[in-house]
Protein backbone atom coordinates (compact mmCIF):
# COMPACT_ATOMS: atom_id res chain seq x y z
CA UNK A 1 0.00 0.00 0.00
CA UNK A 2 1.34 3.41 -0.96
CA UNK A 3 0.01 6.68 0.35
CA UNK A 4 -1.70 9.09 -2.04
CA UNK A 5 -0.51 12.69 -2.35
CA UNK A 6 -3.38 13.81 -0.19
CA UNK A 7 -2.64 11.19 2.45
CA UNK A 8 0.99 12.28 2.55
CA UNK A 9 -0.24 15.75 3.50
CA UNK A 10 -3.00 14.62 5.84
CA UNK A 11 -0.67 12.37 7.83
CA UNK A 12 2.47 14.52 7.44
CA UNK A 13 3.01 14.98 11.18
CA UNK A 14 2.97 11.20 11.63
CA UNK A 15 5.22 10.66 8.62
CA UNK A 16 7.91 13.00 9.93
CA UNK A 17 7.59 11.66 13.47
CA UNK A 18 10.72 9.85 14.61
CA UNK A 19 9.93 6.19 15.18
CA UNK A 20 6.59 6.35 13.34
CA UNK A 21 6.75 7.22 9.63
CA UNK A 22 5.05 5.78 6.57
CA UNK A 23 5.27 2.17 7.72
CA UNK A 24 3.30 2.88 10.89
CA UNK A 25 0.80 5.04 9.01
CA UNK A 26 0.13 2.27 6.50
CA UNK A 27 -0.43 -0.15 9.41
CA UNK A 28 -3.04 2.23 10.85
CA UNK A 29 -4.81 2.53 7.51
CA UNK A 30 -4.99 -1.26 7.30
CA UNK A 31 -6.20 -1.74 10.90
CA UNK A 32 -9.64 -2.43 12.30
CA UNK A 33 -10.68 -1.16 15.72
CA UNK A 34 -13.93 -1.89 17.54
CA UNK A 35 -15.31 0.71 19.93
CA UNK A 36 -17.77 -0.62 22.46
CA UNK A 37 -19.72 2.47 23.48
CA UNK A 38 -19.84 5.74 21.55
CA UNK A 39 -20.23 7.88 24.66
CA UNK A 40 -17.87 9.76 26.98
CA UNK A 41 -14.77 7.64 26.44
CA UNK A 42 -15.79 6.49 22.97
CA UNK A 43 -16.07 10.07 21.65
CA UNK A 44 -12.44 11.14 22.02
CA UNK A 45 -11.28 7.65 21.09
CA UNK A 46 -13.27 7.71 17.84
CA UNK A 47 -12.20 11.26 16.96
CA UNK A 48 -8.49 10.64 17.49
CA UNK A 49 -8.49 7.25 15.80
CA UNK A 50 -10.37 8.68 12.84
CA UNK A 51 -8.00 11.64 12.59
CA UNK A 52 -5.03 9.27 12.85
CA UNK A 53 -6.32 7.28 9.89
CA UNK A 54 -7.36 3.95 11.41
CA UNK A 55 -8.79 2.21 8.34
CA UNK A 56 -11.90 0.66 9.84
CA UNK A 57 -13.73 1.74 13.00
CA UNK A 58 -16.58 -0.43 14.25
CA UNK A 59 -19.06 1.28 16.59
CA UNK A 60 -21.22 -0.76 18.96
CA UNK A 61 -23.92 1.23 20.76
CA UNK A 62 -27.66 0.81 20.86
CA UNK A 63 -28.25 4.12 22.58
CA UNK A 64 -29.48 7.44 21.22
CA UNK A 65 -27.95 10.84 21.84
CA UNK A 66 -29.60 12.70 24.70
CA UNK A 67 -29.08 16.24 25.94
CA UNK A 68 -27.40 14.94 29.14
CA UNK A 69 -24.72 13.26 26.98
CA UNK A 70 -23.41 16.44 25.38
CA UNK A 71 -21.54 17.70 28.47
CA UNK A 72 -18.83 15.09 27.74
CA UNK A 73 -19.65 13.07 24.61
CA UNK A 74 -17.91 15.46 22.25
CA UNK A 75 -18.41 13.50 19.03
CA UNK A 76 -22.14 14.28 19.14
CA UNK A 77 -23.74 17.66 18.74
CA UNK A 78 -26.92 19.43 19.74
CA UNK A 79 -28.48 18.70 16.37
CA UNK A 80 -27.90 14.96 16.85
CA UNK A 81 -30.08 14.65 19.96
CA UNK A 82 -32.50 11.78 19.39
CA UNK A 83 -30.31 10.20 16.70
CA UNK A 84 -28.63 6.82 17.17
CA UNK A 85 -25.17 7.39 18.63
CA UNK A 86 -23.60 5.19 15.96
CA UNK A 87 -25.20 7.33 13.21
CA UNK A 88 -24.17 10.61 14.79
CA UNK A 89 -20.61 9.40 15.44
CA UNK A 90 -20.27 7.87 11.96
CA UNK A 91 -21.25 11.19 10.34
CA UNK A 92 -18.65 13.11 12.34
CA UNK A 93 -15.95 10.53 11.57
CA UNK A 94 -16.70 10.71 7.83
CA UNK A 95 -16.50 14.50 7.95
CA UNK A 96 -13.19 14.34 9.77
CA UNK A 97 -11.53 11.72 7.58
CA UNK A 98 -13.00 10.07 4.49
CA UNK A 99 -10.21 7.45 4.60
CA UNK A 100 -12.00 5.78 7.49
CA UNK A 101 -14.61 3.13 6.90
CA UNK A 102 -17.20 3.06 9.68
CA UNK A 103 -19.14 -0.08 10.51
CA UNK A 104 -22.22 0.60 12.61
CA UNK A 105 -23.69 -1.87 15.08
CA UNK A 106 -26.77 -0.10 16.47
CA UNK A 107 -27.26 -2.48 19.38
CA UNK A 108 -25.56 -3.40 22.66
CA UNK A 109 -22.85 -5.98 23.19
CA UNK A 110 -24.30 -9.22 24.57
CA UNK A 111 -23.04 -12.68 25.45
CA UNK A 112 -24.47 -13.85 22.11
CA UNK A 113 -22.87 -11.29 19.79
CA UNK A 114 -19.63 -10.34 21.63
CA UNK A 115 -17.28 -13.06 20.36
CA UNK A 116 -18.44 -12.74 16.75
CA UNK A 117 -18.04 -8.95 16.73
CA UNK A 118 -14.67 -8.91 18.47
CA UNK A 119 -13.23 -11.62 16.21
CA UNK A 120 -13.38 -9.25 13.21
CA UNK A 121 -11.14 -6.61 14.77
CA UNK A 122 -7.47 -6.04 15.67
CA UNK A 123 -8.02 -4.01 18.82
CA UNK A 124 -11.08 -3.50 21.00
CA UNK A 125 -11.76 -0.42 23.13
CA UNK A 126 -14.22 -0.56 25.98
CA UNK A 127 -15.84 2.77 26.60
CA UNK A 128 -19.04 1.29 27.99
CA UNK A 129 -20.89 2.65 31.00
CA UNK A 130 -21.57 -0.57 32.89
CA UNK A 131 -19.70 -3.48 34.46
CA UNK A 132 -21.71 -6.08 32.59
CA UNK A 133 -20.27 -4.87 29.27
CA UNK A 134 -16.76 -4.29 30.63
CA UNK A 135 -16.55 -7.91 31.80
CA UNK A 136 -17.99 -9.09 28.48
CA UNK A 137 -15.32 -7.18 26.55
CA UNK A 138 -12.59 -8.51 28.82
CA UNK A 139 -13.80 -12.11 28.72
CA UNK A 140 -14.41 -12.14 24.97
CA UNK A 141 -10.99 -10.59 24.27
CA UNK A 142 -9.20 -13.14 26.44
CA UNK A 143 -11.13 -16.01 24.83
CA UNK A 144 -10.56 -14.71 21.29
CA UNK A 145 -6.92 -13.77 21.92
CA UNK A 146 -7.50 -10.08 21.19
CA UNK A 147 -5.85 -6.97 22.58
CA UNK A 148 -8.03 -4.37 24.27
CA UNK A 149 -8.18 -1.29 26.44
CA UNK A 150 -10.68 -1.13 29.29
CA UNK A 151 -11.46 2.20 30.90
CA UNK A 152 -13.79 3.66 33.48
CA UNK A 153 -14.56 7.18 34.71
CA UNK A 154 -16.54 8.63 37.60
CA UNK A 155 -16.70 11.97 39.42
CA UNK A 156 -13.21 13.53 39.04
CA UNK A 157 -11.33 10.31 38.38
CA UNK A 158 -10.70 7.55 35.93
CA UNK A 159 -8.76 4.34 35.43
CA UNK A 160 -7.67 2.23 32.50
CA UNK A 161 -5.58 -0.75 31.49
CA UNK A 162 -4.40 -2.45 28.32
CA UNK A 163 -4.57 -6.18 27.75
CA UNK A 164 -2.72 -8.17 25.09
CA UNK A 165 -2.80 -11.97 24.79
CA UNK A 166 -0.82 -13.37 27.73
CA UNK A 167 -0.84 -10.23 29.86
CA UNK A 168 -2.99 -9.69 32.94
CA UNK A 169 -6.70 -9.23 32.28
CA UNK A 170 -9.30 -7.07 34.03
CA UNK A 171 -10.36 -10.09 36.13
CA UNK A 172 -6.77 -10.60 37.37
CA UNK A 173 -7.27 -7.28 39.14
CA UNK A 174 -11.01 -7.26 39.79
CA UNK A 175 -12.13 -10.93 39.74
CA UNK A 176 -15.80 -9.94 39.84
CA UNK A 177 -17.82 -6.74 39.51
CA UNK A 178 -18.85 -4.99 42.73
CA UNK A 179 -22.15 -5.93 44.32
CA UNK A 180 -25.03 -4.06 42.73
CA UNK A 181 -25.66 -1.87 45.78
CA UNK A 182 -22.00 -0.76 45.75
CA UNK A 183 -22.04 0.44 42.16
CA UNK A 184 -22.05 4.15 41.51
CA UNK A 185 -22.76 5.45 38.04
CA UNK A 186 -22.16 8.74 36.26
CA UNK A 187 -25.90 9.36 36.23
CA UNK A 188 -25.98 8.90 40.02
CA UNK A 189 -22.93 10.86 41.16
CA UNK A 190 -21.83 12.76 38.06
CA UNK A 191 -18.57 13.03 36.18
CA UNK A 192 -16.43 15.98 35.15
CA UNK A 193 -16.82 15.98 31.37
CA UNK A 194 -13.17 16.58 30.56
CA UNK A 195 -12.17 13.41 32.46
CA UNK A 196 -13.62 11.45 29.53
CA UNK A 197 -11.18 13.25 27.26
CA UNK A 198 -8.20 12.64 29.53
CA UNK A 199 -8.82 8.91 29.77
CA UNK A 200 -10.18 8.43 26.23
CA UNK A 201 -7.15 9.98 24.60
CA UNK A 202 -4.92 7.60 26.57
CA UNK A 203 -7.01 4.70 25.27
CA UNK A 204 -6.64 5.99 21.70
CA UNK A 205 -2.89 6.37 22.21
CA UNK A 206 -2.57 2.82 23.52
CA UNK A 207 -4.53 1.57 20.52
CA UNK A 208 -2.30 3.41 18.03
CA UNK A 209 0.82 2.15 19.83
CA UNK A 210 -0.45 -1.43 19.70
CA UNK A 211 -1.41 -1.27 16.02
CA UNK A 212 1.92 0.24 14.98
CA UNK A 213 4.18 -1.58 17.44
CA UNK A 214 5.32 1.68 19.01
CA UNK A 215 6.73 1.91 22.53
CA UNK A 216 5.63 0.04 25.64
CA UNK A 217 2.00 -0.64 26.40
CA UNK A 218 0.06 -0.17 29.61
CA UNK A 219 -0.06 -3.92 30.21
CA UNK A 220 0.13 -5.57 33.64
CA UNK A 221 -0.71 -2.19 35.14
CA UNK A 222 -3.63 0.05 35.97
CA UNK A 223 -3.26 3.75 35.24
CA UNK A 224 -5.38 5.91 37.49
CA UNK A 225 -6.07 9.61 37.22
CA UNK A 226 -7.47 11.97 39.82
CA UNK A 227 -8.26 15.55 38.81
CA UNK A 228 -8.62 16.81 42.38
CA UNK A 229 -4.96 16.16 43.18
CA UNK A 230 -4.05 16.24 39.45
CA UNK A 231 -2.18 12.98 39.83
CA UNK A 232 -1.64 10.09 37.48
CA UNK A 233 -0.62 6.86 39.16
CA UNK A 234 0.61 3.70 37.46
CA UNK A 235 0.05 0.64 39.63
CA UNK A 236 1.81 -2.49 38.52
CA UNK A 237 0.31 -5.93 38.89
CA UNK A 238 0.90 -9.36 37.50
CA UNK A 239 -1.11 -11.88 35.60
CA UNK A 240 -2.92 -13.80 38.36
CA UNK A 241 -2.28 -17.55 38.06
CA UNK A 242 -5.52 -18.10 39.96
CA UNK A 243 -7.60 -15.89 37.63
CA UNK A 244 -10.90 -17.64 36.88
CA UNK A 245 -10.62 -16.54 33.25
CA UNK A 246 -6.95 -16.59 32.23
CA UNK A 247 -5.31 -18.45 35.13
CA UNK A 248 -3.89 -21.98 35.20
CA UNK A 249 -7.26 -23.59 35.88
CA UNK A 250 -9.94 -21.38 34.37
CA UNK A 251 -13.53 -21.87 35.50
CA UNK A 252 -14.99 -19.29 33.12
CA UNK A 253 -15.09 -21.02 29.77
CA UNK A 254 -17.95 -19.34 28.00
CA UNK A 255 -19.32 -15.84 27.79
CA UNK A 256 -21.90 -15.14 30.44
CA UNK A 257 -23.34 -11.69 30.87
CA UNK A 258 -23.79 -10.52 34.43
CA UNK A 259 -27.53 -10.58 34.88
CA UNK A 260 -27.71 -7.17 36.46
CA UNK A 261 -26.89 -4.04 34.53
CA UNK A 262 -25.55 -1.82 37.29
CA UNK A 263 -25.22 1.29 35.15
CA UNK A 264 -28.21 0.37 33.09
CA UNK A 265 -30.02 2.43 30.52
CA UNK A 266 -32.99 2.38 32.85
CA UNK A 267 -31.27 5.19 34.70
CA UNK A 268 -31.62 7.39 31.63
CA UNK A 269 -27.95 7.36 30.66
Amino acid sequence: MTLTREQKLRYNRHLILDGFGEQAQVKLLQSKVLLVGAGGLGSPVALYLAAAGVGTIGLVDGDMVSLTNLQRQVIHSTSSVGQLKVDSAAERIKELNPDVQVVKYPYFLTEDNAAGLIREYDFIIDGSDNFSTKYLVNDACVMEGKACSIGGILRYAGQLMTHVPGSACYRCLFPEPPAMNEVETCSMVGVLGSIAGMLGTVQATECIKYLTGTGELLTDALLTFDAISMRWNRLEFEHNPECALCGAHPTIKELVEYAFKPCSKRQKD
Partner: protein
Amino acid sequence: MTVYSCPELFLCLNMKIRINSKETETGAATLMELAREMGLPAKGVAMAVNNRMVPRGEWSATSVREGEDIVIIKAVCGG
Protein backbone atom coordinates in the same frame (compact mmCIF):
# COMPACT_ATOMS: atom_id res chain seq x y z
CA MET B 1 5.07 -12.73 52.45
CA THR B 2 5.80 -13.06 56.17
CA VAL B 3 3.31 -11.80 58.70
CA TYR B 4 5.04 -9.98 61.49
CA SER B 5 2.92 -10.50 64.53
CA CYS B 6 2.96 -7.67 67.00
CA PRO B 7 4.83 -8.59 70.19
CA GLU B 8 3.18 -5.87 72.22
CA LEU B 9 -0.17 -4.61 71.08
CA PHE B 10 0.44 -0.93 71.83
CA LEU B 11 3.26 -0.87 69.28
CA CYS B 12 0.76 -1.67 66.58
CA LEU B 13 -1.63 1.13 67.36
CA ASN B 14 -1.36 4.55 65.77
CA MET B 15 0.99 3.43 63.07
CA LYS B 16 1.26 6.16 60.46
CA ILE B 17 0.72 5.18 56.84
CA ARG B 18 -0.45 6.99 53.74
CA ILE B 19 -3.73 5.92 52.19
CA ASN B 20 -4.45 7.43 48.78
CA SER B 21 -1.85 10.11 49.50
CA LYS B 22 -3.41 11.09 52.86
CA GLU B 23 -1.55 10.48 56.09
CA THR B 24 -3.64 8.12 58.20
CA GLU B 25 -3.26 6.28 61.50
CA THR B 26 -4.12 2.64 61.71
CA GLY B 27 -4.01 -0.26 64.10
CA ALA B 28 -4.27 -2.79 61.28
CA ALA B 29 -1.43 -5.27 61.07
CA THR B 30 -2.35 -6.64 57.66
CA LEU B 31 -4.05 -5.40 54.49
CA MET B 32 -7.05 -7.58 55.33
CA GLU B 33 -7.39 -5.91 58.73
CA LEU B 34 -7.03 -2.54 57.06
CA ALA B 35 -9.76 -3.44 54.56
CA ARG B 36 -12.03 -4.45 57.46
CA GLU B 37 -11.15 -1.33 59.43
CA MET B 38 -12.13 0.79 56.44
CA GLY B 39 -15.24 -1.23 55.68
CA LEU B 40 -14.19 -2.00 52.11
CA PRO B 41 -16.64 -4.10 50.08
CA ALA B 42 -15.79 -7.70 49.21
CA LYS B 43 -15.72 -7.16 45.45
CA GLY B 44 -14.53 -4.49 43.05
CA VAL B 45 -11.68 -3.17 45.19
CA ALA B 46 -7.93 -3.52 44.76
CA MET B 47 -5.10 -2.46 47.04
CA ALA B 48 -1.56 -1.49 46.17
CA VAL B 49 1.39 -1.15 48.50
CA ASN B 50 4.21 1.10 47.32
CA ASN B 51 2.75 1.11 43.80
CA ARG B 52 2.46 -2.68 43.49
CA MET B 53 -0.96 -4.25 43.44
CA VAL B 54 -1.54 -6.96 46.06
CA PRO B 55 -4.08 -9.61 45.02
CA ARG B 56 -6.94 -10.08 47.47
CA GLY B 57 -5.76 -13.63 48.17
CA GLU B 58 -2.61 -12.16 49.72
CA TRP B 59 -4.19 -9.46 51.85
CA SER B 60 -4.19 -11.55 55.03
CA ALA B 61 -0.53 -12.42 54.62
CA THR B 62 0.61 -8.88 53.75
CA SER B 63 1.68 -6.83 56.73
CA VAL B 64 1.16 -3.10 56.95
CA ARG B 65 4.28 -1.22 57.99
CA GLU B 66 4.92 2.27 59.29
CA GLY B 67 5.30 4.84 56.53
CA GLU B 68 3.94 2.67 53.75
CA ASP B 69 2.10 4.13 50.80
CA ILE B 70 -1.17 2.31 50.30
CA VAL B 71 -3.54 2.93 47.43
CA ILE B 72 -7.11 1.69 47.48
CA ILE B 73 -8.79 1.54 44.09
CA LYS B 74 -12.44 0.93 43.45
CA ALA B 75 -13.40 -0.30 40.00
CA VAL B 76 -15.46 2.37 38.24
CA CYS B 77 -17.82 1.70 35.38
CA GLY B 78 -18.66 5.10 33.92
CA GLY B 79 -17.92 5.72 30.30
